[in-house]
């Protein structure tokens, strides 16, 4: 599991790669939690290279998304592979978490430059 982040003016981008399982979930919770702390508006987790996730990792997503929402922010996810999307849908995460098909769509929706200027 690796998490690479980039802090932009309107959002924090986190690229999650590899496998998130029982052994790596604690590390993810710490890293994603730290990013949520420094993120003012939105945290976007790019899952295009996330090959595996189990309930321990899904629990982290839920905790971080709740925390962001409580603080008035947003935690969104993009580019889910078909397997990861199926898992999200099975536990209803597609209804409670903000999902975008790809990074471009997510950026356009979350941080459109014209909306910021207006």
């Amino acid at each position, binding site marked *: 599991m690796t998490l690479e982040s980039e802090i932009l003016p309107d959002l924090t981008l986190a690229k999650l790669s590899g496998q998130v399982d029982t052994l790596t979930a604690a590390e993810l919770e710490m890293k994603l939690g730290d990013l949520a702390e420094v993120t003012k508006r939105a945290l976007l987790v790019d899952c295009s290279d996330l090959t595996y996730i189990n309930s321990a990792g899904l629990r982290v997503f839920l905790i971080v998304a*709740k925390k962001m929402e409580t603080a008035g922010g947003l935690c969104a996810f993009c580019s889910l592979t078909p*397997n990861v999307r199926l898992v999200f849908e099975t536990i209803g995460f597609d209804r*409670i978490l903000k999902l975008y098909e790809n990074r471009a769509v997510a950026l356009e929706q979350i941080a459109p430059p014209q909306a910021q200027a207006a």
Partner: protein
Amino acid sequence: MRPGSLSTKLNVHLRETELVGKIVREFGQWHDVPEQTVFLVKLSLDELVTNIVVHSAGQIPCVREIVLRLTTNQHELWAEVEDDGCAFNPLDLPIPDVAAPLQERSPGGLGIHLVRSLMDRVNYKRVGQRNLLVLSKKVTQPSAVELP
């Protein structure tokens, strides 16, 4: 799929979930199991083995061994997880409310819910002094290896 079977013993440790993933992937390759089925079976077994290890910690006697079996025929895959711990049926765990809004969602119980939902059948039996969980998943995708 290519018909076959595999049986192995696991230590009672969370690190073994990594090995479970490796076993399922390799078994899948040898038996021409579709990629998505490999993913779903790997996830289900990961959740069940994790549950056994975590629950074993508070049990007397604790679990000493976990046996994993995988079997395929042309159209279906079965997985069995057996342990020698106290009677414990994970299917008795409460089902999470997957329709609840974000702030009301509890992070617990997701693993067993995934197993129940992603497999076609999940059965629990207490056999003597052992817990036995049997999962099955039908595979509709045509196999690359057509047997006569």
